[in-house]
């Protein structure tokens, strides 16, 4: 050790010292290290690889008659597939002009007007709306009605009345053939 220390240990000194620098540097490295170590413990709760692998579903549409609805499971959630009647399509289009809480045209919500495909989960707090069977209540707008807190959806799956803030979500899907879709 030939170099003399610039500041003698314990000597009174104004402003920053090497010791302050070391303290701050150590604290910062320690904090970053802790954050890096904690991240795996947090991220382990996110969907695992096998859960993500199950994220697409294929559906054959050929058995569905006009006016019928079916429910399929995608990512553990119900997806409503409704083959709409001409009347329902017309109603959804005229409703484009109504006062919508979450404005969206029917044409933006469907790829083929006959097939309405939406996630069957109420956008309020996640209940499953009624209206898939002809015997169930479909609400004031002919679509679906959520029994939990009274949200009404129209024939395009748009929210019209009640506490839900958004329209029923449209999942990503593609028509693999004319009668087959792949969701997700």
């Amino acid at each position, binding site marked *: 050790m030939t170099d003399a220390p610039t500041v003698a240990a314990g000597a009174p000194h104004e402003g920053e010292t090497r010791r302050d620098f070391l303290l701050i540097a150590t604290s910062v490295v320690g904090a970053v290290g802790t954050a890096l170590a904690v991240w795996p413990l947090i991220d382990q*709760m996110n*969907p695992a690889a096998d859960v993500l692998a199950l994220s697409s579903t294929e559906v054959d549409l050929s058995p569905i008659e006009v006016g019928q609805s079916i*429910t399929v499971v995608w990512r553990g959630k119900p997806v409503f597939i409704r083959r709409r009647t001409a009347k329902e399509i017309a109603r959804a289009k005229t409703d484009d002009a109504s006062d919508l809480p979450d404005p969206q045209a029917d044409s933006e919500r469907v790829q083929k007007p006959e097939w309405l495909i939406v996630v069957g989960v109420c956008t309020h707090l996640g209940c499953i709306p009624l209206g898939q069977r002809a015997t169930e209540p479909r609400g004031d707008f002919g679509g679906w009605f959520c029994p*939990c807190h009274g949200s009404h959806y129209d024939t395009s799956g748009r929210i019209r009345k009640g*506490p839900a803030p958004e329209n029923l979500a449209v999942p990503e899907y593609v028509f693999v053939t004319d009668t087959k879709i792949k969701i997700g």
Partner: protein
Amino acid sequence: MTSPTWNNPIVKWIEYRLPVFSFTQEHLIDYPTPKNLNYWWNFGSLAGIVLTIMIVTGIVLAMHYTPHVDYAFESVERIMRDVNYGWLIRYVHMNGGSMFFAVVYIHIFRGLYYGSYKAPREMLWIIGIIILLTMMATAFLGYVLPWGQMSFWAATVITNMFSAFPLIGEPIVTWLWGGFSVDNPTLNRFFSLHYLLPFVIFGLVFLHLWALHVHHSNNPLGIDTKGPQDILPFHPYYTIKDLFGLGVFMLVFMGFVFFAPNFFVEPDNYIKANPMQTPTHIVPEWYLTPFYAILRAITFDIWFIPAKLIGVIAMFGSVLILVLVPWLDTSKVRSARYRPIYKQVYWFFVIDCIVLGWVGFNSPDAMFMGAVSFLRIGQVATAYYFLHLLVVLPVLGKVERPRSPPDSISAAVTKESNAVTEAA
């Protein structure tokens, strides 16, 4: 009070290294307690006893329960039918949850009436509110474990509340679920956390008692103890009183366990969870219905903030705001006995909370006596809840003229007995 000396050499050896004997002597035997505590002061020790019962029965149930979506419901039914005394242990645990909240709510309302949250006991109160929040989380997690219809849909609705927050909401919900809906990963982590949190509560209770033992118990007069004439040693005076209270409480608790074990549960929870079908009427357990009513009372947007988010904020806020009560209440007098107006608005507040609980049980669209919807009643009750805490408490402390409390606990007694003698 002088600490006794121990003659037993083993006791002496331990005491020198870890003073557990003098600690017990100081905090459980000699511990100075105001001599005028009434029966409302029994509920703290009752809460501690119920917590112990819940931990013991819970550990035993975990020996037989399987946290998997395919087996959870069946394993609970197996506990009920095949495990030796499984029915008893589960019914004690199930009703114990309701008893725990009943006891803790009375304990909290006791504190609100006698001003137990005021200086220097603010930390004691705040830790208590944190215990309440942790209890709510624990109760919710536990309710999901039997994997009945109510379990599943409670989990779905409650976790979805977090989706109300913009941007971060959806990722949080996916993170909570470990998937894209409530499913096996969700059940697994809920079981893990339901096992963990009671021990967190246990630690919080330790802090709660630590804070209590710094400034000691409040009392019905809300005045400080002035000397030995105002206090009694905890043992045997309050150990025996707490034991008597425990006996009475157990009559009620065991009354439910043996004669009405399913009084508090929804029958739908004996139907196995079905992710494709929501029950027509979803209600939480009774102890959470007041908060559920507050959540649903907000049906209107405020500026750009959607109703759903305000509802969630109001619900969490209704508990968190209690932390501020020591500062919202501006009155210098602790006990409601000497606050003629507070004494009355206090009961308004109690009734308001009961009304909220009752509204939470009913569908918001349903009409009460055909005249007014439960939604409207819930909105009025929610408004009063916040009005009471945010406006009535601070203003009343300034404008009310309290009566003057007695000089000391013993002075209050001697004054009364003098009055009796004079009257005779």
